[in-house]
């Protein structure tokens, strides 16, 4: 598996898109720090971008890489290599290079600005950790879509829909259900609903770690009680790990039963 990972990773590192993605974050980091002149504020702005952009890039990159490397995959399938190693290796190559672009692209400007002397270091690391998780989750989900759909157009469509659903539609449905059922106690429901969408989960997690949860009113208090504690943090991270592991498991399961 490590060899496949190595080849996929190098293949991506050599491609122009990895650089574009890395430079984008690098420039974004510098610009935000320059404009805000404050690490904490830059983290909040960054969060809004990362929460939406990282899943989108993970989805699109994942699905494109899978379809583009079809020939490579077929070549490997005839070699003495375990099937799950081929797919997991490719997946980790994509997710790894995207995560690296993200962490280095944002890390460099913040470190240069004096992150280590600032007290926002914990918030910033949390931002990077959730960003990495979102990359892993959405790349894995897109690989799952790709392996189940031979038709590229269909696969691409489903992947974009998935992102749209998680990033936009889910919130809409969530909000609507809150309005419709406003007569009932909704604390547990909203907590659970947040858990079932990795994007919402990451957003809430970061928002509540930053000290702006007072703006969120009563619901904020309930959320703060949950997410603000160490226990809440651990449960949320576990949930993110689950969100990562499940699609990876399905990818490996599905790959063993697929015809090529």
């Amino acid at each position, binding site marked *: 598996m490590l*060899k496949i990972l190595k*080849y996929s990773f190098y*293949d991506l590192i*050599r*491609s122009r898109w990895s650089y574009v993605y890395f430079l984008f974050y690098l420039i974004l980091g510098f610009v935000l720090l320059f404009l805000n002149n404050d690490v904490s504020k830059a983290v909040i702005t960054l969060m809004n971008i990362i929460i939406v952009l990282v899943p989108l890039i993970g989805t699109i990159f994942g699905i494109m890489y899978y379809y583009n*490397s*079809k*020939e*490579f995959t*077929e*070549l*490997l*399938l*005839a*070699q*003495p*290599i*375990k*099937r799950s190693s081929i797919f997991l290796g490719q997946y980790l190559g994509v997710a790894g290079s995207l995560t690296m672009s993200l962490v280095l692209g944002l890390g460099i400007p913040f470190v240069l600005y004096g992150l280590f002397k600032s007290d926002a270091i914990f918030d910033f690391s949390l931002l990077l950790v959730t960003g990495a998780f979102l990359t892993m989750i959405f790349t894995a989900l897109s690989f799952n879509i790709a392996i189940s759909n031979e038709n590229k157009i269909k696969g691409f469509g489903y992947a974009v829909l998935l992102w749209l659903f998680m990033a936009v539609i889910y919130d809409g449905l969530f909000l609507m259900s809150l309005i419709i059922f406003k007569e009932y106690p909704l604390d547990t429901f909203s907590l659970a609903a947040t858990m079932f969408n990795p994007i919402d989960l990451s957003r809430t997690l970061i928002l509540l770690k930053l000290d702006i949860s007072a703006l969120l009113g009563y619901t904020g208090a309930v959320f703060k009680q949950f997410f603000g504690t160490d226990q809440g943090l651990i449960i949320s991270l576990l949930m993110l790990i689950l969100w990562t592991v499940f699609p990876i498991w399905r990818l490996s399961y599905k790959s*063993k*039963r*697929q*015809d*090529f």
Partner: protein
Amino acid sequence: MIQIENLHKKFGKNEVLLGLDLNIEKDGIFAVLGPNGSGKTTLIKSILGMVIPNQGTILMDGIAIKKNWKYRQQIDYLPQIANFPGNLKVKELIRMIKDLRQMPSEEERLIALFKLEPFLDKKLSTLSGGTKQKVNIVLAFMFDCPLLILDEPTTGLDPASLIHLKELIQNEKKNGKTILITSHIMQFVAEVADTIVYLLEGKIYFKGSIDELMTKTQQTNLEHAIAAIATTHDNA
């Protein structure tokens, strides 16, 4: 070497293999023939584990290949359509496959034989169909494996390369290897094959030497004999 029992495979509603039994016990060159869509490639891909059968067993040297991948160390495979990752150079591709297989290889001799030196630094996406097929052949022949599977090896080759290919195949046979070939070029089959395996409607319709096939169909020419099988079956 390979034992296949009651192999079934369908793609959606299209049943390709219907209880195929095949036993390849000794060394030599086996030509797998059959009309388009008779399941030749599906059979080969099943042996390679790329297609997973719905039913039936495939044994390689007595060991079931299901959920096994190590047996592929014994197989060299030349795919029908030479699809390679386009952004790699020929040299890089060869190095990568060597790295993945970790076996002694003799690619230099083959590269020289097919005069591929000028293309080593070119990207695979820029190569012509015939040149790609030569690279394909180099990759399939550079390792020393007891089983060699060639799916349409003659596609796109010029006459000189075709002669080299035939020599290579005969050499491998002399080295005691088992070789499975599919081809639609009957002249090529008549020249190289020892045994004909004829697939029809998902089953083995005939297995035997070329002479036996001629006697059975009362023809003097392999091409006509093969065509005769198909027509007699249609009439029956």
